């Protein structure tokens, strides 16, 4: 009997380990690319890299968080991401502490060229997003929420020199959604352009020409926003995505409260009451949210403030490619805002 059991165990384990080895062999045969492999940390940066490298030979742009929609504050690297990074030469990130998973990658791949595309940008203050930092974080959040909401455009954070701290695990309540500010996105464009020019000087002219074309598109888009700002200036609102703070700031609309939503967020009763009070005090009837959460926000606040929830796109995912797609989505956002206030 004991022999039979031993035989059974050996067979069972042999089959199990054998199948595992088979999976490993089949998987290892896949993928290996030639040329310059550039990995971007998420969608807005991917769009820039795609446009700048359009028509370039031997350049592949891959996005790290392909299957992830929304912002990436809570993203953790998968094994596939780690493998992708191990073969990459260039890693373009958004910066501003958006990529909290970066510490692991930086430790693992010391040779990998990591380009912070928001370096030098003066970030707005944000609502706390970082991991496990106890009371410091909680207090900051309370401070941020207690008075005038999460934004005071006069409060800026310089990006330089923050990286080290971020890696050490401190929290700074930075609003990292720089791409929603067109000037911020222009800065990112220049950083991406420089990164490719440095990494692949042979095709520098092409990169510069592509970047210039994007720049023109973005400047035109910015003009449209500036024009609209003349009629929208001075309005107030509450937003449910930190990125919208930048977008509305361009239009002169002041955000009195910002509550970032994500898939695990439930609006606490106290916070809902606070937002309702603020809306009543400021006479706010328009709230801005992304599509996924608009319904629940409408349910919570719609009747209370007899207002509406306007859906904007935070440009954190989509089917399009390149900077033109970014412009398309940002134009849709502008149109929706204008319609809301009865312009045009």
């Amino acid at each position: 009997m004991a022999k039979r059991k031993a035989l059974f165990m050996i067979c069972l384990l042999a089959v199990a380990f054998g199948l595992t080895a088979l999976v490993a062999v089949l998987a290892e045969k896949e993928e290996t690319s030639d040329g310059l492999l550039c990995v971007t940390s998420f969608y807005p940066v991917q769009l820039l890299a795609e446009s700048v490298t359009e028509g370039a030979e031997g350049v592949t742009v891959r996005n790290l968080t392909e299957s992830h929609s929304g912002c990436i504050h809570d993203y953790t690297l998968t094994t596939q991401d780690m493998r992708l990074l191990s073969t990459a030469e260039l890693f373009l990130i958004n910066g501003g502490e958006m990529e909290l998973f970066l510490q692991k990658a930086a430790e693992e791949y010391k040779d990998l060229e990591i380009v912070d595309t928001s370096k030098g940008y003066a970030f707005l203050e944000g609502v706390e997003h970082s991991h496990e930092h106890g009371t410091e974080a909680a207090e900051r959040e309370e401070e941020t929420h207690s008075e005038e909401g999460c934004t005071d455009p006069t409060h800026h954070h310089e990006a330089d020199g923050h990286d080290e701290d971020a890696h050490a695990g401190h929290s700074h309540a930075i609003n990292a959604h720089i791409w929603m500010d067109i000037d911020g996105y222009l800065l990112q464009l220049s950083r991406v352009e420089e990164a490719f020019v440095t990494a692949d000087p042979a095709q520098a002219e092409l990169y510069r020409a592509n970047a210039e074309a994007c720049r023109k598109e973005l400047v035109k888009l910015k003009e449209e926003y500036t024009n609209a700002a003349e009629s929208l200036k001075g309005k107030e609102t509450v937003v449910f995505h930190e990125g919208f703070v930048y977008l509305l700031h361009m239009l002169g609309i002041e955000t009195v409260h910002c509550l970032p939503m994500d898939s695990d967020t439930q609006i606490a009763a106290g916070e809902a009451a606070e937002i309702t009070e603020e809306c009543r005090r400021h006479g706010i009837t328009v709230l801005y949210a992304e599509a996924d959460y608009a319904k629940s926000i409408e349910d919570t606040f719609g009747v209370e403030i007899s207002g509406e929830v306007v859906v904007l796109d935070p440009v954190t995912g989509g089917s399009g490619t390149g900077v033109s797609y970014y412009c398309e989505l940002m134009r849709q956002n502008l149109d929706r805002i204008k319609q809301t206030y009865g312009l045009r």
Partner: protein
Amino acid sequence: MEFLSYGFMRNALIAICIITPLFGILGTMIVNNRMAFFSDALGHSALTGMAIGVLLGVAGTDVPMLLFALVFALVLNHMKRKSSASTDTIISVFSSLGTAVGLVILSRGGNFSKYSALLVGDILSITAKEILCLLGVLVLTLVFWLVCFNKLHTCSVNKSLAMSKGLPVRLIEDLFAVLIAVIVMLSIKWVGILIINALLILPTAAATNIAANMREYHLFSVILSVSSGLIGLVLAYYLNAAVGPTIVIVAAVFFAATFFARPLFRT
């Protein structure tokens, strides 16, 4: 063997080689003493432990989690002895309370997503220091197992008999509860609240299917636990899946295989 070229995979492999035999041995004792639900409740209490750490502003939440789990385990044991309600009712009350308090504190400001990693765990982020810590716990568990297994087993078979033989039943039970608390808390970040119990129970349950005596029971439990861990880690790497749940699925396959193989070993 491409996966061994990455530091994070090497660390995870070493950690698996320590955690899984640990779980294999602990699992046998947990199943013997019918404490499966107890270890599950402890896992859930990790949320409250972490929440207390966050409230106190402690740099790492490990220490408050561990301390809370120890208090939780001992109070739970005490209540079990004193209360007239059945054990599973008491454990259920504690488990739910531990989860609820943790959720209330951690979801303040709608930020629970920050802590959701605790639910499924992430063994890929384990560091060398933490591995050493786990090694210490493995040694501790082996010592406890060698010294206390027979006594614990007697308690589980018949408490009155154990008492009549002069065994310090209460002390042994409390020590065992403390051991479970320490192991659960130290491994929960890597394994995850939702599945830690499956890892503790499944290999042991699979061993129960085919073992005829205590020696086979322990041997099979450890072998199946280690095998599930190794296979799960490698499969997770190549299939781009979360490690903990993959290990649980492999362990479940082993359970099914041994379950259907049972008739082969009937005398």
